[in-house]
């Protein structure tokens, strides 16, 4: 545990530039994806095992704060995917190691070019969903009660 705290502190202080930032971003995005993935897999399995719980959790995912989390996962998946390909290519091509820094810049560029328009589109979707509910006198800031989904009970 103390080594973990030491790592977090020194990771923020260490001035390893692009390689260090890539290493941290890969780990942090990986942990973020895994945390969501585990919840997502067990939750989605409920579509078969416990449909009422699944229908309720689908309603929960429309809550604006969770929609922002969805955006974070989108960023994490895109960065982790392209940086992972960079790691794989460099692992199998040692003769490219002189391009470490440039490859990291390319990955960040691809990530930003893809993520920025997707983020704008997803954020406008959240606002669209909320304003549509508001037009019907409802609100997106309210999670429907579990009992609303009793029709899906086994």
């Amino acid at each position, binding site marked *: *545990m103390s*080594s*973990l705290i030491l*790592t977090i502190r020194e990771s923020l202080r260490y001035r390893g530039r692009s390689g260090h930032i890539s290493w941290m971003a890969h*780990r942090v995005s*990986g*942990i973020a*994806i*895994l945390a969501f*993935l*585990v919840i997502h*897999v*067990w939750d*989605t*399995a*409920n*579509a*078969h*095992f416990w*449909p009422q719980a*699944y*229908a309720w959790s*689908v309603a929960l*995912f*429309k809550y604006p704060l969770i*929609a922002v989390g*969805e955006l974070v*996962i*989108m960023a994490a*998946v*895109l960065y982790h*995917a*392209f940086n*992972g*390909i960079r*790691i*794989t290519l460099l*692992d*199998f091509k040692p003769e490219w190691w002189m391009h470490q820094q440039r490859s990291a810049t390319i990955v960040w560029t691809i990530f930003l070019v893809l993520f920025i328009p*997707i983020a704008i*589109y*997803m954020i406008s*979707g*959240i606002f*669209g*969903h909320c304003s549509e509910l508001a037009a019907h006198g409802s609100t997106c800031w309210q999670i429907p009660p579990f009992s609303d989904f009793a029709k*899906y009970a086994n």
Partner: protein
Amino acid sequence: MAAATSSQKITVRKFQVHSNFERFAYLFMRMSGVALLILAVGHMLIQHVLNSSSNLTIEFVAAQWDSWGWKVYDILLLWLAIPHGINGLRNILEDYIHNPATVKLVNRLLALFVVATVIWATIGMALFDASRFQ
């Protein structure tokens, strides 16, 4: 004779390779990573950009899982993503856990978790009956 031996010190290091697991794990991370570039990024783009969580319902899931094509896509994604993610977590944890007994215990728990999750979710998807929600 004894003097000659002591002047020619040869270091003999016995190294026993227990298993090739780490090598397979290393290769698996890279191979599954390439596959997940298509499967996982594709999943994010299809389900979260082309479709959206804001109009997701269990009926929409049923419409997708009415075809074996979507079921196979999601089962393949599950089989690659869960071991890839948990092995990544194992790599990170091994940087911070120094007690070999604890490492062994954590590895066993993670392996158990992978098996349980993959089996449970595969059964859930394979047996999912779309007609119940249509």
